[in-house]
């Protein structure tokens, strides 16, 4: 019967959401109850933050450059090439900085979290940890989630800055426009809601990429093939959810700050 597979799929989805909610709740709660593994938090901050710096700088620089390149062609049709700086800075800070950083770090770290934890599950290392009286959620998941939230915030600022620099380089050296004007436009048209939006998003994205990476890793079944499956699911779901949540936050902030825009 066609009804049965639909029913079982629906049940599976509801069960996954329920498991994820409980998993997230416990992982967050662990930060406020001892023992807190601060050394693991620092180590993960180094892996996630410092390790992702080069890809964030490069992607930020290129994206800012492309934005300036593409917008200049369109804006010149209206004689408005002077607003290139405003266009690049607003786009980077509001949208592309957070989303791009989230997706890039998700590709790098959600996958590594899922595969690392997944491998530990299939080789019984997670069970061994539990048998030794250590909570894997507290030891492995909580430090990764908080390191991701903490570091993605700063990585987004780096991506925004390098995006604006990239746009500036293209504006000056390729579009042959005035650099001071570019920077003035980039700075003067920034408003509080833009900053709030740009800095609130990475907090959510960092949480999404790390909690989903760890969730799929810890739920791994089916040996090495299962590890591969978990890794794919983690990256795909984290990336899609980041983009979807980006839409929700943008809508919310536009509503909240309607008078400022």
């Amino acid at each position, binding site marked *: 019967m066609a009804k049965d597979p639909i029913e079982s799929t629906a049940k599976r989805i509801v069960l996954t959401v329920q498991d994820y909610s409980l998993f997230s709740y416990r992982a967050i709660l662990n930060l406020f109850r001892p023992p807190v593994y601060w050394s693991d938090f620092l180590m993960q901050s180094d892996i996630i933050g410092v390790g992702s710096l080069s890809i964030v700088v490069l992607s930020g620089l290129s994206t800012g450059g492309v934005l300036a390149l593409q917008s200049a062609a369109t804006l010149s049709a209206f004689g408005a090439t002077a607003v290139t700086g405003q266009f690049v800075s607003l786009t980077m800070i509001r949208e592309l900085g957070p989303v791009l950083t989230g997706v890039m770090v998700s590709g790098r770290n959600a996958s590594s979290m899922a595969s690392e934890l997944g491998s*530990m599950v299939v080789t019984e*290392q997670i069970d061994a940890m*539990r048998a*030794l009286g250590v*909570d894997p959620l507290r030891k492995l998941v909580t430090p990764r989630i908080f390191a991701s939230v903490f570091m993605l915030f700063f990585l987004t600022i780096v991506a925004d800055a390098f995006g604006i620099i990239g746009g500036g380089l293209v504006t000056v050296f390729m579009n042959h426009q005035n650099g001071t004007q570019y920077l003035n436009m980039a700075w003067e048209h920034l408003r509080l809601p833009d900053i709030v939006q740009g800095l609130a998003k990475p907090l959510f994205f960092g949480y999404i990429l790390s909690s989903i990476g760890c969730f799929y890793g810890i739920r791994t079944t089916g040996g090495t093939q299962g590890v591969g499956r978990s890794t794919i699911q983690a990256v795909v779901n984290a990336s899609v959810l980041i983009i979807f949540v980006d839409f929700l936050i943008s809508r919310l902030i536009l509503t909240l700050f309607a008078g400022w825009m």
Partner: protein
Amino acid sequence: MLTFRNVTLGFAGPPVLEDISFSVAPGETRIVLGPVGVGKSVLLKLANGLLRPDEGSIHLFGEDISHMREEDLFALRRRAGMVFQEGALFDSLTVRDNVAYQMIQERVADSEIDARVLEALRFVGLEETFSYFPSSLSGGMRRRVAIARALIHHPDLLLYDSPTGGLDPVTSTNIIELIVKQRDVFHTPSLMVTHRLQDAFTMCTHRFVTQDNGMVPLPEGETDPKTSFLMLSEGRLIFDGSLGALVRSEDPFVREFLE
């Protein structure tokens, strides 16, 4: 130490274990026999709360762990050492950090950790592997390191999950000798799962002599009085008794398994 009362567990299908009842008393060694895939490892994971029963109750150190919260179970688990089927060593940590894992989490001083790890490694004859990574050890060495990790805290109960599975006969005998040594030196109660009859019989018919630092056979006809057997078949416990009772059993499955 450990009591199972009418324990049943299934994973989306027919029960893997059904109506299992037995106990492990202080100083006792119980060997769970049965063919591969009969639920022996599942039974061991139920013993320290890594899995929860669907029905029945499990008492560990006098406390009912069947419905205990995971957070509360950690303290009890620290009192029970477990040796996993493939060792389950943390592959990104050295042997020293693996053996001392629990102590490192408890922030014990490094000097004390080093001394205790060396003592545990000496017990399993692997002092030289102190700073090695698990990937550079053989299968037998990994099991011995896993035994050292389980013993370092002088646990009140030991759980061995097929400690000789997949090993050659010589290495298997070395591992069994270690388990007999642990039994006869520390007298820690234990529950060992295996499908290898030879290992089970060796444990029952040998004792460890500290002066010779080796395992010797007991006199003909004698068996270790504290070592007894359980046998699983199709998720049910079909035998619970001594070696003598096992070899005299008329149960067709037991006879087939022994022969």
